[in-house]
């Protein structure tokens, strides 16, 4: 194994993102969004109301980060296959898993970067408005990051088997929280198939990435959070191994 090759792949992928104008355009849009959110918050005197708005802001960010992880998972390898740039990489003495590990590193780097921006923003907003915002930095970031990495890995895995667009859509639809929402809707509508769908939902809940992240206003970590982290890491490693297995067996290029 050559860690230098892994980092070279990761660095090259990161370069492709950082040198893309669309990426910086998205960052500017993000900052603009924060600016627009910060302005009405300044005029609200009720602390509880501010807290609610901040919570909404956090949920909004989670969704954006979730979409970003899905997007990364669908494009990070498949764009190289589509543009056929992969043929000048895989015809070198490099293992396919080294290439994939580089891609995973880069995915992690981008997600971490998103989180740095997010944490700085949240800290800034709560400091400005005097909200007693408690963030358990290490565990919160770790579980949330692992969750997003799992989503990224899961999308990457599916896009090895089916078209990246369908893979991304599937992760979006069968994401446990989204799916549970649909189950609830179906049950309320008394669908004759609700039992089957509920069982399917439970099954999907078991196989899809474990949900993590506990952003809270003053709550503390429980014992289960530590186990969740271990489970997430195990899930991530297992996903990576399955991706490697499929990537190794698949046909890289189709003439």
């Amino acid at each position, binding site marked *: 194994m*050559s860690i*230098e*090759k892994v980092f*070279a792949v990761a660095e*090259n992928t990161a*370069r*492709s993102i950082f*040198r*893309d104008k669309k990426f910086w355009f998205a960052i500017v849009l993000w900052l603009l969004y924060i600016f627009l959110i910060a302005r009405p918050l300044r005029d609200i005197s009720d602390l509880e109301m501010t807290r609610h708005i901040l919570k909404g802001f956090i949920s909004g960010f989670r969704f954006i980060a979730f979409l970003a992880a899905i997007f990364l998972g669908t494009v990070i390898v498949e764009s190289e296959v589509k*543009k*056929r*740039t992969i*043929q*000048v*990489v*895989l*015809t*070198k*003495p*490099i*293992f396919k898993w080294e290439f994939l590990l580089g891609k995973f590193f880069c995915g992690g780097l981008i997600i971490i970067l998103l989180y740095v921006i997010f944490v700085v923003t949240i800290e800034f907003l709560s400091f400005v408005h005097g909200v007693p915002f408690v963030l358990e930095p290490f565990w919160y970031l770790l579980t949330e990051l692992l969750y997003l990495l799992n989503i990224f890995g899961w999308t990457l895995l599916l896009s090895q088997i089916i078209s990246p667009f369908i893979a991304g859509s599937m992760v979006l639809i069968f994401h446990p929280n989204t799916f549970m929402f649909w189950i609830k809707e179906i049950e309320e509508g008394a669908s004759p198939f609700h039992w089957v769908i509920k069982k399917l939902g439970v099954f999907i809940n078991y196989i899809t990435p474990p949900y993590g992240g506990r952003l809270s206003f003053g709550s503390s970590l429980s014992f289960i959070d530590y186990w969740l982290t271990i489970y997430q890491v195990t899930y991530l490693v297992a996903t990576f191994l399955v991706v490697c297995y499929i990537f190794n067996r698949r*046909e*890289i*290029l*189709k*003439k």
Partner: protein
Amino acid sequence: MTILEISNLTKKYKTGFARDRAVMAISDISFKIEEGQIYGLIGPNGSGKTTTLLCILNLIRPTSGEIKLFGERHLQPFIFGKIGYMPEEFTFYDFLSGKEFLELQAVLYGIPKAHRKSRIQDVSEMLGMTNYLSRRLKHYSRGMLQRIGIAQALLAEPKLLIMDEPTSGLDPEGRKVVRTLLEKLANSGVSILLSSHILTDVEKMCHKVAILNNGKLVTEGSLESFLNKNAGYRIMYESLSAEIPRNATLIQSESNKKIIYVDQDNLNNCIAYLTNSGAKIKEVIEGSKTLEDFYIEVLKE
């Protein structure tokens, strides 16, 4: 020493919704390349040239057959340290500069850090790219991309070079530079497998040639045996008749002007036939068949 040996290589693609239909991309292809040999794969579009190259490089999984590189099965990645590959449509990381791109390729080849700079310098000098390395690849012309593609293939001083259309997109001077370079490499013991549409280049460079058509290897052998040097004549004539003499090969036909090729034994019969049928003979030139003549003849058969 045999560098590359392909035996009964076949690639079928499954198509259709139920994957129940099969399209044969290449069928039962066998050939081998010796050390220092330049081997040309020629054939019309869709004949299976690129599929063959991609199978060798493990980018496409063959349905059956065996590929041996340096005497070993090709699946181990370390083998690729001895191979340089230049793809057909040179698709690149357009956000990188020429230097960054070559540095990335050098890392992937596992060239030690101490030697990377000098290797990049050497190959870029060899291809006249030194002044363009700081420019981003998206600003490169087609010819420059072709050169950087060749440069990355030469970085690790390969023992086998696989090149898909190495001279397409180059101006005549650039083509000559590449031809000279490849001949020089072959003389130093590097084996070269290339596919090309530019038959004049193939004729000038290659020692052996294989002609592919519809995924099958039609013929394979040394250029000398194909072209049968100095043993034939080209006859240029004007005739309204569509018929051509027996034992002659039609090389070119534009309205009533035709060029045919005949061997020495059939020359007199052929001239007599043309004169009797009222054709106006414009020119008879002694000389060997060109690869193009042979290629057209083989494909017609």
